[in-house]
């Protein structure tokens, strides 16, 4: 095991895939000369040159679509968005084209493109820079959506994403790039897309989460442990396809579930997981599934409001207390 920062795990995954397949290239704003706005592509320009590390103008719609077209024509683009908050401008290419073209053309083409970059909020950056878009992309048939929370998952899943022959949305977080963790040194380390991971076992309550909220939930689980509550912590890692089996198996054991999701409540991952649990494990539930999400409000700038806005460990503990009737 090597200890790597999240950004290093991302870079290593891209590096390894670029070394293996010359059709893999990286394109996005500031990815080459600047080494990535968050240094996730550091050193790759030196190694692979200007042909395969491509700085773009600020033209998200255009370069996302060029990525789709290039993928249709045999390349394997890794398209970086400085954040998914800016991918909104490229939505037409991702939603109307990447996800649909294979189907519309009766399977004549494939679109092996990865769209990657940070998702969600990163401190006081205001309303337009703070939205979690994972459930939005998961809504559309034809896209796979991944959001890892630790360097090891990031590396194994990004390598799988780049090798996948479908369009994949791969989400990170500005606030996790510096996070260190052990990463497998196995040669060609691949984690299958669509597999959640139980990262902490417990009998009392299941917490289903992903991305940055995994770390919030982990903190809450540590607090709850002191209080004698054993949390089973599931990191989804892939949002779509969703690993329902792992969730249901755990809920059947704990009989209680809290979903922690860094998105607004309406139609988010928490809503979907909650529905599926009642469909698949209704008789096993000892309490209604609870969720912890952002409020139905845009991100405020002011620090004190932002702190209220973003879910924290206390919110998770409160929700656990509710489903365990400890209040």
């Amino acid at each position, binding site marked *: 095991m090597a200890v790597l920062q999240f950004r290093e795990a991302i870079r290593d995954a891209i590096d390894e895939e670029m070394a293996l397949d010359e059709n893999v290239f990286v394109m996005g704003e500031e990815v080459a000369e600047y080494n990535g706005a968050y240094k996730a592509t550091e050193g790759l320009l030196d190694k692979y040159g200007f042909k395969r590390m491509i700085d773009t103008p*600020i033209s998200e719609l255009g370069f996302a679509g060029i990525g789709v077209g290039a993928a249709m024509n045999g390349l394997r683009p890794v398209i970086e968005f400085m954040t998914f908050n800016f991918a909104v401008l490229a939505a037409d290419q991702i939603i109307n084209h990447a996800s649909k073209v294979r189907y519309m053309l009766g399977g004549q083409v494939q679109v092996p493109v990865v769209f990657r970059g940070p998702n969600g909020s990163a401190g006081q950056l205001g309303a*337009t820079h703070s939205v979690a878009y994972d459930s939005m992309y998961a809504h559309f048939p034809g896209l796979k959506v991944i959001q890892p929370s630790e360097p090891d998952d990031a590396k194994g899943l990004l390598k799988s994403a780049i090798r996948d022959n479908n369009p994949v949305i791969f989400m990170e977080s500005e606030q996790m790039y510096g996070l260190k963790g052990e990463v497998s040194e196995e040669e060609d380390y691949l984690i299958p897309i669509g597999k959640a991971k139980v990262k902490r076992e417990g009998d009392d309550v299941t917490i289903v989460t992903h991305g940055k909220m995994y770390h919030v939930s982990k903190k809450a689980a540590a607090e709850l442990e002191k209080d004698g509550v054993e949390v089973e912590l599931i990191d989804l890692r892939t949002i779509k396809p969703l690993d329902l089996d792992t969730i249901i198996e755990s809920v059947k054991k704990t009989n209680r579930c809290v979903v922690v999701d860094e998105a607004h409540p309406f139609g988010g991952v928490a809503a979907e997981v909650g529905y599926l649990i009642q469909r698949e494990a209704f008789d096993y539930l000892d309490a209604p599934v609870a969720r912890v999400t952002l409020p139905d409000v845009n991100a405020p700038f002011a620090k004190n409001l932002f702190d209220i806005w973003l879910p924290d460990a206390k919110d998770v503990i409160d929700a656990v207390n509710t489903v365990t009737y400890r209040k």
Partner: protein
Amino acid sequence: MAKKQEEAVFTPIGLNKSNNGKLDKAVELPDPTDTSYKDLGLTKQDLVGMFESMYLQRRFEERAMQMYQKGKFGGFLHLYIGQEAISTGSVWAFNDDDDIITAYRDHGWGLVRGVTPEAGMAELYGKTDGCSKGKGGSMHFANVKEHFWGGYGIVGGHIPLGAGIAFANKYKESGRLAACYIGDGAVHQGVLHETMNMCQLWKLPCIFVVENNGYAMGTSARRHSVGEIVDRADAYGMKKAVINGMDVFTVYEKMKKIAEEVRKDSLPWFVEIRTYRYRGHSMSDPQKYRSKEELEEYQKIDPVERMKTFILENKITSKKKIGEIEEAIENRVLEAIEFAENADAPEPEALFEDMFVEENPIFHK
């Protein structure tokens, strides 16, 4: 023998023969005007006022930067330092009720359009007394009452908003024009081209101004843009101009003429004002993409210093008076900081305010 094919390369590199597209000079400035201030219709008082405004913008941001570095507030902080002649010359050229909209590099624009140093600083600190109630922060200064429609954080996002404001002005026959300021990087958002076409087609009283400060984040304008930015206008048959943005008289002269024309014929303009960003893109930018020499080139023609020198050399006012002005501004900025530090943070209820216009809107839970 087959010739070895050169490797395909996509981004422009090796501009000016220097390595990796590093440039000797990011923007070429056109000559400043040689019309005298009197012929421009400016009074001595105007000149002093322009200097005051530019100096306030400069000191406000220099102090804000210090406070940011001390960790007094968070978020992004994009400084306008070096570009103050553009905001100042433009606002002096326009009518007070002409509409202005800009990107996130907006502190200078706010200060010259009625955001007080107190309200500005409080916004940076995320306080209720901020110009946007602490909801927006650095990127979203605004003073809509005085026709400053704010700063926007999505590159290019406000381009059609500017056109929409102009559309409403034409619709209501208000006689007001709208000026939409964007960065050189924003030129490459597709929406600019959609908007320019409609503006020309519908004769909207709108002036698009590209503040070409040489860089979009770490990418020099010459590396992200084909040809001259201003020539985008040609495709739409739009009137165009290139202006020296380091000289406030030049900005004033050209923008005034343009504004007068727009008011007469309601035809849009596409203007490139060339300037230079002295500081990093935001506060965490190592600036490896440019040379110190390049920066110094432009600091030699600093717009604030240039105005001060002009005032002193032409005896517009005394050195003593200028000293007093500077001191007063310095004090005002320090007071603004104190004000912001002591101002109240928003009440928790404010989180749910300003989402909808109703007093008790329904929020999904």
